[in-house]
């Protein structure tokens, strides 16, 4: 449905996007994740034809956005970061204007009513947009993107400014839209992307740093198998006993956490479960285990690791060494 090839965007000497490529099948919800200024909005603006790429091409439904912009634009519903609303119009007037602007062919009254019911703004139809709360403005923005049932929806931070209840509603809405539409949404809120998207692309500094399903991303990046154990006993005995467990590659002493209680980080080979051997070793010596948790990376950690690139990854090992 969407094919992005080698997208590069330069603002003067500043490289905002650096050779981004991906393809999206119909009916996928893609989450675009990245810190502020990573290039999420720029990518979306290029796909929608608001900006032009310095290099590369985008096709939407088979139509190139530069060579055949009208056909490509007809297939896209876009909610920009700041919803493009006219404050001096009522919701009804605005949607009716957007309906005409987009040259929608569906029966006007019914179509607008249907969409307003979907995003739950039907009781706000005669209010001036200027007087709406941020959450309602956001919904009017979403309604505007849905006009004409475009096969592709591009939503730039769709849940910003909504209250928790509305966020859940909008997420469910996006999920249900994802069955018929191809959706690209951007966010820097991880749980949101995790909850809604089939596929995640993480961008940082204008380049794709990861691409996959939420689970595969977390899995790929947490290949290392790490266990945090808190045990009571003599420090050096504990250390040697843990080290002696078959499958254990590295044991790091994280220090005395309670009087006589030490915490260790136990690292093993890939895909081995170290919890039972550790328990057995402790039982053998009658060392009480006061806590044990496997430190699988959450998506949050994956994200921070990906975008933290140079900063955190370099800093982390040093800290660990210092702790030893």
């Amino acid at each position: 449905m969407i094919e992005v090839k080698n997208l590069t965007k330069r603002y003067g000497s500043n490289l905002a996007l650096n050779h981004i490529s991906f393809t999206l099948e119909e009916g996928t919800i893609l989450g675009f994740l990245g810190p502020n200024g990573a290039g999420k909005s720029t990518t979306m603006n290029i796909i929608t034809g608001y900006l032009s790429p310095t290099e590369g091409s985008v096709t939407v439904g088979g139509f190139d956005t530069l060579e055949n912009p009208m056909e490509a634009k007809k297939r896209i519903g876009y909610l920009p970061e700041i919803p493009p609303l006219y404050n001096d119009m009522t919701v009804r007037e605005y949607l009716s204007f957007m309906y005409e602007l987009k040259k929608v062919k569906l029966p006007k009254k019914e179509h607008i009513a249907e969409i307003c019911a979907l995003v739950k703004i039907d009781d706000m139809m005669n209010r001036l947009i200027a007087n709406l709360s941020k959450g309602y403005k956001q919904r009017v923005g979403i309604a505007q993107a849905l006009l004409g049932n475009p096969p592709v929806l591009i939503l730039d931070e769709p849940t910003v400014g909504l209250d928790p209840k509305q966020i859940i509603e909008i997420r469910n809405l996006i999920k249900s839209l994802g069955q018929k539409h191809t959706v690209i949404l951007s966010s820097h809120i991880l749980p949101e992307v995790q909850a809604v998207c089939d596929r995640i692309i993480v961008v940082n500094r204008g380049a794709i740093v990861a691409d996959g399903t939420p689970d595969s991303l977390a899995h790929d990046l947490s290949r290392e198998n790490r266990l945090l154990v808190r045990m009571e006993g003599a420090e050096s005995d504990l250390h040697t006993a843990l080290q002696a467990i078959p499958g254990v590659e590295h044991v790091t002493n994280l220090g005395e956490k309670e009087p006589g209680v030490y915490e260790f980080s136990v690292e093993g080979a890939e895909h081995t479960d170290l919890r039972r051997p550790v328990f057995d070793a402790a039982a053998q010596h009658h060392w009480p285990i006061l806590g044990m948790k496997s430190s699988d990376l959450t998506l949050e950690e994956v994200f921070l690791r990906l975008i933290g690139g140079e900063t955190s990854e370099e800093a982390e090992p040093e800290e660990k060494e210092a702790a030893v």
Partner: protein
Amino acid sequence: MTAIFKKELRSYFTSPVGYVCAAVLFALYGFYYYSVMLVGSTYYIAAGVYSSMFIWSMMILPILTMRSFSEEQKNKTDQALLTAPVGTGSIVLGKFLASAAVYGIIMLGSLVPAVVLSFFSAPNWALIAGTVFGSFLYGAAMLAIGIFISSLTQSQIVAAIGTFGVSILLVIVDQFSGMAGNETAAKILNWLSFNSRYTPFTNGIFNFASIVFFLSVAAVFLFLTARKLESRRWN
């Protein structure tokens, strides 16, 4: 294009802008009609009313166009326009036609006293119609310039003052022609002047060259505005 035209026309009359411009111009028209009536001859409607109104109209027109694209850029609503399946040409034309329609309504309104006078006297309608047509032409050209300037900035104030500057220049440029020592320079200045282009209309001369001039100015600036919108994508 029709969607944008309707939206723009609506916004002229849901905000005070359209009313304020019309009110100020109508008040001034009223004043000049009054002075023509003091003279007691409808012959002076063209020369007395419409030619005096030239300068005031040129001052008011920048207000009509100052928010045209500046406001869209500032509120980021241009994103909706530029990502909709509409060409930049139709966006610009829609906006231009809406502002021209407002000015056209004002011009029609300005004829009300002349119509009333026609019950008591026989004004020269051919002369008046020619003058109104001429007024509409310089207005259209000025509106196109104003729309272009507003596409250059996000600030309505900057757009308004910039357009004022251009409009003042176009009003007084023929006065420099006397000062220019060079004959060619004087010719060019005269050629550019809206004033010297418009004056023949008020004397009952239907000058084809002037019609082409005003229409070309409007076309050129509308074209430039469309290019400007297009070029923003490449920044």
